[in-house]
C-alpha cells in the first residue's frame, strides 16, 4: 500500500473538465477586448482584474495565514502614490515606481506587522483598521503629496509604454491588469504548493500544533503580510495610472479594505480562485447598481453586498468555491 501511495502524483491532477474550463477561460481572457469592443466592457473587466488581484492579496494574509486585515487600502494607496510622486516630481517612469511601491509596501508591512501580528484573534483586525485610517489622515494633510486634493498624474502622450498611460484606448490597460492578475495568481498557486504555503495553512488552523512542528509563527505571518502588501501595491500603481487622479479619500478608504474582504469571503477565502470569483460578482454588481440607481447607487450596492454575504454565510460559510476545491484535492491519486 505504501508503494501504491508513493506512486501517486504529488499533486492531484485536475480532471479534464477543469483543464478544459481553464483553457477556455484563458483564451476568452486573452481575446476579450476583441470580442467585447465597447469601452464600458473594457472598463468593467479592468476593474474586475484589478480587484481580483487585490482580493487575492487579501487572501494571502486572511485566507492562508488567518489574519483579518482591515487596512489593506494602505498598500493600495502606497502603490498609487509611489509611482505618481516619482513621476510627477522627478519624471521617473511608473515602471520603476511600481517596484518602489512594492518595496515601500513590503517595508510598511514589516512596520505594521511586527508589532501587530503577535496579537491573536481580532486585535490584528482592529489595529489594521486604525492604522489604515491614520495613514489616510496623514496623506490628507501631507502637503508634499497634495494633501486632501491629492495628485494628478502628469499627462504625457509621447511614449505611452514608458509612461504607462494610454489615452486612445483602454485595451493596453486591460492587458496590463490581466498580466498583473495572472502573475499574482500564479504566485499564489506556487505558494500553496510550497513549504511556506503549507506552513501558513497549518498556523492558520492550529497555531500551537504548528509551533510544535517547528514553525516560527510570528515570522511566517509577517512574511505573508509582506507578500500581500507588495501584491496590493501593484494594483495601486496600475489603478493610479488608469484613473490618473489620486484622491486620498478614495485610495486609502476603509471601503477598499472591506470590499476586498467581501470579495474573498464570498468567493471562498483560502482558495485560489475564490477571490477572482468574488471580484467577478461584486464589481459588475457595484457598477450596474450605480448605473441603475444613479448617484445614490453607492448605498444600494452595499445593501446587496450585505445580502450576498448573509446568503453565503448561511449556505456556504467558507465561500462558494470551497466545496469544489476540496473535491479536487481529495482526488489525489486514483486509490480509494
Amino acid at each position, binding site marked *: *500500500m*505504501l508503494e501504491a*501511495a*508513493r506512486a501517486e502524483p*504529488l499533486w492531484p491532477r485536475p480532471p479534464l473538465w477543469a483543464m478544459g474550463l481553464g483553457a477556455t477561460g484563458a483564451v476568452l481572457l486573452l481575446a476579450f477586448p476583441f470580442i467585447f469592443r465597447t469601452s464600458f466592457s473594457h472598463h468593467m473587466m479592468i476593474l474586475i482584474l484589478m480587484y481580483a488581484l487585490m482580493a487575492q492579496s487579501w487572501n494571502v494574509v486572511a485566507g492562508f495565514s488567518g489574519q483579518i486585515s482591515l487596512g489593506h487600502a494602505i498598500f493600495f494607496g502606497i502603490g498609487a502614490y509611489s509611482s505618481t510622486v516619482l513621476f510627477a516630481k522627478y519624471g521617473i517612469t511608473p515602471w520603476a515606481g511600481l517596484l518602489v511601491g512594492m518595496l515601500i509596501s513590503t517595508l510598511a508591512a514589516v512596520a505594521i506587522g511586527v508589532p501587530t501580528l503577535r496579537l491573536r484573534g481580532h486585535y490584528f483586525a482592529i489595529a489594521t483598521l486604525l492604522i489604515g485610517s491614520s495613514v489616510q489622515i496623514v496623506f490628507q494633510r501631507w502637503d508634499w503629496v497634495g494633501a486632501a486634493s491629492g495628485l494628478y498624474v502628469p499627462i504625457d502622450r509621447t511614449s505611452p509604454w514608458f509612461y504607462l498611460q494610454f489615452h486612445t484606448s483602454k485595451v493596453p490597460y486591460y492587458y496590463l491588469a490581466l498580466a498583473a492578475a495572472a502573475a499574482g495568481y500564479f504566485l499564489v498557486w506556487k505558494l500553496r*504548493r*510550497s*513549504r511556506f504555503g*503549507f*506552513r501558513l*495553512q*497549518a498556523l492558520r*488552523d*492550529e497555531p*500551537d*500544533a*504548528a*509551533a*510544535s*512542528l*517547528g*514553525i*516560527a*509563527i510570528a515570522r511566517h505571518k509577517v512574511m505573508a503580510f509582506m507578500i500581500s502588501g507588495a501584491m496590493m501595491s501593484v494594483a495601486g500603481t496600475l489603478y493610479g495610472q488608469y484613473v490618473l487622479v489620486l484622491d486620498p479619500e478614495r485610495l486609502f478608504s476603509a471601503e477598499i479594505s472591506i470590499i476586498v474582504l467581501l470579495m474573498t469571503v464570498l468567493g471562498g477565502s*483560502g482558495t485560489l480562485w475564490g477571490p477572482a470569483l468574488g471580484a467577478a460578482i461584486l464589481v459588475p454588481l457595484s457598477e450596474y447598481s450605480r448605473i441603475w440607481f444613479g448617484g445614490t447607487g453607492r448605498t444600494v450596492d452595499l445593501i446587496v453586498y450585505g445580502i450576498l454575504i448573509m446568503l453565503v454565510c448561511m449556505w456556504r460559510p467558507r465561500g462558494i468555491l470551497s466545496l469544489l476545491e*476540496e473535491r479536487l*484535492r*481529495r*482526488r*489525489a*491519486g486514483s*486509490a*480509494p
Partner: protein
Amino acid sequence: MSLLLDVKGLTKRYGGLTANAEVTFDVNQGEIVGIIGPNGAGKSTLFDLITGFQPLDAGRVFLDGHDVTGLRPDRIAGLGVARTFQKLKPFPDLTVTENVIVGALARTADMKVARDQALEALAFVDLLDKRNSFARELSTGQRKRVELARGLAMHPRLILMDEVTGGVDQRTVPGLVDLVLELRGRGLTIVTIEHNMQVMMRLADRILALHAGRRIAFGKPEDVRKDPAVVDAYLGTAADAA
C-alpha cells in the same frame, strides 16, 4: 547511557495555584519514561513547560546538555523534540497526508521528499487508507494517530506523548502500545503521559508520579507502584473507585 532530557526544579504558578512545584526528572537516550498522576496533577503543564508553550517561574530544562529553558516552541521543536497534545490539534482543513507533510517539512523543504516521509509515517501508524480524508472527518483514535505521525515525520530525537491511549477504542490499545515500543526500538526516546496503569507498566522503563504539581515518586515501575505516596494519591483512589 547518556542523558537526553534533564529537567531541574520546574515550577509554574497560576496566581495562588501551583501547577508544578520543583519537578525534577531526567530521561536517558532510548528510554521510555511514563508520567502518571490524577487529573490536575500537572502532567500536561509539565509538557508545556518543557516544550516552551508556557513560561515557567523557576527551574531549568537541558536537552542533550544544552540549556533550552524558555526557548520558543518552534525552536525546541527544531532541536528534535516532538509532542502531541492531550486536546488534539490536527489541521482540520488539510488532508491527513497534508497534515503529516507539515511535520516532515521541519526537516526538508522538498515537497516530494516531505510527502514520501509523510506516507512512511502514516504507514507506520497504519493510517495510509485514510490519507486523502480531511483531518476533521476522522475519529478520535485516528486523529491521535495523525498527530503521532505528524510528530514522527519530524524525525525527532525525543517525543512527548500526551495520553496516546486515552479516549480511544479499547481494542486498539494493544496496537498503540506495540507502536510505542517499536518507536523505541528505532532509537526514539519517549516521555508519555498515561492514565492506563497496565499500559504504563508494560511501556515505561521508569515512571514519574505527580500529585498536586509535585513529584511524589520517580523510579522503576514496580517500585513506583508500591510507593506508599503513589498508592495513596493515585492507585488507592483508583482502587476505591473500582
